[in-house]
């Protein structure tokens, strides 16, 4: 067989292997490997006339050294505190964010108790007094934010 034809065939085989053209079969994967499929085909699957491009996830594993607090089953009857780092335009009008959020929470959960931002210290850098004041308010949950 002509050398150019052999090289051409190898290239075509390589291309098909790369994009899985016309034959989107499941490939064997190591146990536990998770896969997400994003399907943007406009043609019906039955035609088998589509390609697959499989890429690897670029992010990293992280060693866990801490735990989140247990979550709540419901917000009704719970005390939700709102801690704010600063007021005004420099810090994103967090007070207005919180006011609207509090209205919405009360509308959906009539028994929720909101501990408003202005009952807690408004400080950019957390200090012991800030933490003490938050804990003294005995919240079941805390919203922290918004600007610097």
């Amino acid at each position, binding site marked *: 067989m002509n050398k150019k034809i052999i090289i051409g065939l190898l290239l075509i085989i390589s291309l098909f292997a790369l994009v899985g053209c016309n034959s989107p079969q499941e490939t064997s994967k190591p146990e536990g490997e*998770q896969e997400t499929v994003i399907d943007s085909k406009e043609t019906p699957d039955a035609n088998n006339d589509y390609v697959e491009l499989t890429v690897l996830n670029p992010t990293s594993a992280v060693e866990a050294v801490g735990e989140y*607090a247990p*979550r709540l089953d419901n917000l009704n009857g719970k005390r939700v505190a709102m801690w704010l780092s600063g007021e005004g335009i420099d810090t*994103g009008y*967090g007070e207005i964010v919180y006011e*609207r959020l509090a209205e919405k929470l009360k509308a*959906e959960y009539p028994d929720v108790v909101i501990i408003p931002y202005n009952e807690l210290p408004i400080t950019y850098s957390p200090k012991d007094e800030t933490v003490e004041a938050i804990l003294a308010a005995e919240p079941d949950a805390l919203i922290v934010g918004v600007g610097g």
Partner: protein
Amino acid sequence: MGSIAEIIENEGIPTASLAMDTHVSTFRAGQSLQTPLRSEKIFPDRLQNKDEAAQIGEESYDFIVEAFTGSPLPDTVVKEGNLFKPAQETITFQADSYEKAVDEFNKYFLEMSWSDTLPLIAPTREKVDYLLTGTDRAPSEVIGNMKPSKGQITVETVAINAAMAGAEPEYMPVIITALELIADQPYSNWRSGHPLIIVNGPISREIGINYNNRVFGPNTSSPAGGAIGRAVSLTMRNAGGFGYGLNPSSQQGHPGMYAGLVLAEAEWNSEDFSFETSYAEDLGFKRDDNVVTVLSVMGTQAIDRGDKLVGVAESMPAHAHHWKKTKEEWGNRTAGILVMNPLVAGNYASEGMTKQDIKEYLSENATVSRDAFIKLAAGGDEANASELAKELLATYGDRIPIAPPEAYTVISAGGWCTCCPYTLMATDSFMDKPMSKLIDLPHNWNSLIQD
């Protein structure tokens, strides 16, 4: 003290953080807890008026309820033993054409914040395996932990991000070495700088890292720096978040976030056109060692008139962070890096001027007025100035030096002309001490660079 969210979560009280992009670190529970970020909502810095703030309050409701009552794990992460791992190891794009699949891949990576916003090369298994031929290290070997999440940077993580950046296998030793150095550094969410990667030794010519014309831009004769810098930047972004790419909270950003800042020093053998020592030699290495050095720099300031160092001295920015608390700290860092082209460096050398002479000139002439110094280094309060500030005021009178001679670095690189031969870069307050490391070459190095 940690973030409020971290402290309160440790008290057994669930938190939810609402953070403007710029201020994420203030609220980030996961940053110190090393747990994922389901209970954190970041929104763009668009709270310019009260109506928008109210809208954010409205939009935050669903998130708040989910953060307090749902699983704390985001969809991007699964817990296996003591590790939080990416929930999806591979992502498959099905489309009517290969071009459409590539488009969808780029859109998805943008959505996940895994992209630097420029088109990416698809990190297929085949492409990543190809890049892994550029190192002898096992794909699973952890070379460091990238902050703030302390994500484990494996050799394969590097290869995946390097594939996305368009790197070649022979770039891998430089990319890995640079990332090892960066991962060792403390993290600053407030940084305005980006790592400058300086390469010394034969490797720069073997793989084509630019030391010549347009040393801070593309040079098709020496193209490696762009992909190396981009690979490092992408790995920093993607290994440092929890399943999402991390946007550092730098308020002005940095052009280096796209393709990095990578250069080689011009260190060929002609005595007529080089300094007496290379930068790597100044740091204690041998002339032929392959060395990567990393420093964080704020920006690049080009300066014209090759025969006049005065323009360089006048261009040194007087950042407040240059003046530390003590004299030892003031000198034990790099404040400014002067890159001068080899022609001008040779001219100075032929006149008997050494790098040390240039550093002393810069220290003597890059100064600020006494009033400016008190504002910058002492917050306007001379009485409560630091030990260093008081000493400098007593010693220098009306003009205060920005940095001592030893805090300047002079290296040789750039195009062959005297019209605009200098670039000056001031360092950021983070990563302002040069960190260097010898580059490990793989067993197949000769065949790699011959290919």
